[in-house]
């Protein structure tokens, strides 16, 4: 089979074990271990420079781990990168699509890259466009559609080949609260259909939407669990409080 592909085993969608990445003497990700279950929406929180993006880049095969290991959809990210790539979707914080191609051309291109048949591409294009209400804009250049639509389109393109895990790197930057809420509905739909979601975010209200979260500080996981567990564990009323205590231990709350 040239595309799609859920996890090959019934194990976790993501399984990181003491995953570490060093740049020279600087340790960006310091031996993190966590698991993400199938269909789970897992939030990756942390201040800028805490190591979220570096960790994500190792999981999607853009960066080799210095030590430790991780499997995604049951395949090792270092030694089975090819298998991993077929089973993951990725959306960058810039909603990267080809601006001078139309909405439909973008979908067709990525469908082709993931080896979908023409019929599948046509069918899924229709589904995507109706889901996000973009039918009438199918022939418009991506450059010309509003940012909120672009964001949803980028997400749907990341899901086009029905990946086992989708990675979202700060996917809601720069869009208004209503669009953000709409976007989280899309994330839940994906989770309900069995796709695991790993999402990094700065917005702590969004963290509340996640099944589980982890908060990274200086390359290590400082807290992990359901949002309420994490709050309770630190005796905090809100995630804001949790976040401040973990990232700035000296700060008065």
């Amino acid at each position: 089979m040239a595309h799609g592909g859920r996890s090959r085993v019934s194990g976790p969608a993501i399984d990181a074990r003491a995953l570490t990445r060093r740049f020279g003497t600087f340790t960006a990700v310091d031996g993190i271990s966590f698991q993400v279950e199938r269909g789970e929406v897992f939030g990756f929180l942390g201040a800028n420079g805490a190591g979220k993006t570096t960790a994500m880049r190792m999981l999607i095969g853009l960066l080799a781990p210095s030590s430790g290991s991780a499997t995604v959809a049951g395949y090792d990210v270092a030694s089975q990168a090819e298998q991993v790539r077929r089973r993951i979707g990725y959306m960058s914080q810039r909603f990267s699509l080809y601006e001078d191609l139309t909405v439909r051309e973008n979908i067709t291109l990525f469908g082709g890259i993931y080896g979908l048949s023409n019929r599948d591409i046509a069918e899924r294009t229709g589904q995507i466009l109706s889901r996000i209400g973009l039918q009438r804009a199918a022939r418009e250049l991506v450059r010309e559609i509003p940012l909120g639509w672009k964001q949803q389109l980028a997400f749907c393109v990341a899901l086009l080949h029905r990946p086992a895990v989708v990675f979202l790197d700060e996917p809601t930057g720069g869009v208004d609260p209503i669009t953000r809420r709409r976007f989280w509905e899309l994330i839940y739909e994906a989770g309900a259909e069995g796709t695991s979601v790993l999402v990094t975010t700065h917005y702590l209200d969004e963290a509340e939407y996640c099944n589980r979260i982890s908060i990274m500080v200086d390359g290590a996981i400082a807290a992990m669990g359901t949002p309420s567990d994490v709050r309770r564990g630190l005796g905090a009323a809100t995630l804001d409080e949790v976040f401040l205590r973990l990232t700035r231990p000296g700060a008065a709350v």
Partner: protein
Amino acid sequence: MRPFLGFVRKETLHLLRDRQTLAILILLPVVQVLIFGFAVRTDVREIPIVVVDPTPDVATLELRERVAASERFRLVAVAPSTRELDSQFQEGSVRQALVLPRDVERRLGRGDTLAVQLLTDGSDPNTGGIMQGYATAVLRRWHADATPAARGLRIEVATRMRFNPTLESAHLFVPGLVAFVLTIVSALMTAISITREKETGTMEMLLVSPIRPAAIVAGKVTPYIVLGFVSVLLVLVAARAVFEVPLQGSLLLLLAESGLYIVTSLALGIVISTRAPTQRTAMLAALAGLLMPTLMLSGFIFPLESLPSPLQALSHIVPARWFLVVVRGIMLKGAGLPTLWQETLILAGMTVLLLIAGSRRLTIRLD
């Protein structure tokens, strides 16, 4: 194969939708041929010349007619003395002067030495040298014809410029232009188009996908290969239509060699794009690192022999240098592979090395 074809389609759409860039790329070859052909010529025509003839007679009249008849010269005036010459040279109305002695006819009849002064505007040394050459040639022939053969032994040196008998500069620059235009179309455009994807973040999308880096690169360069061939043909057609530049050798061989050079340039573009983080850096690197050497160190504008020896040594690693020998050989000398195989082999070797360097950088993905 399908991801690859989809990719070619995408690249073609990028190219077609960027109308301005496309227009520039198509017009570039034609405009370059016209600019180089008309403006940057090193052959000289219609040199304004004055003949100073204090005592006109049959012999000097004959010389004046010869000068006037040549299309190299425009006989501005015949003056009795050199009095006006300085001011004429200064204002530029005259660029050459032929100062004859007195009693030319009688001296010729006696077989005396004839002291003729030839003044040339040397403010541009290149054209100055060329003008001097033309005038000397006219003088020589006239003198030879005017001196009776019976007077004794005469040695006549018959010079002929091979391959470019009329010394048309257009014949020399067209091969250089082919290299120049291909460097822009293939190397610069590839470098820009790959770095653009890095800047917009779409390269990350591709690297996370199962498409192979080799397929990305192949898909990206395919439209530029086609565009490269179109450019070569445009240069050839324009050069032929406007300047009647001949094609002595095989068109097929010329296109095949151009194909090789297109790949060389593409590989250079890929190598640049793997190192340059932004389009701006890529463009500067391509301009400074590729276009300048292609212009200066290939023998296109300055003859390689006239370069200082460190630069001559450096020119060996400039692909355009070898390509230029090949194109000049095919177009002007009608040479074939038996004479050009060495240059071809060097180019092919460079191409392979560059492709290996470029793809190794790409396969290690982003970091």
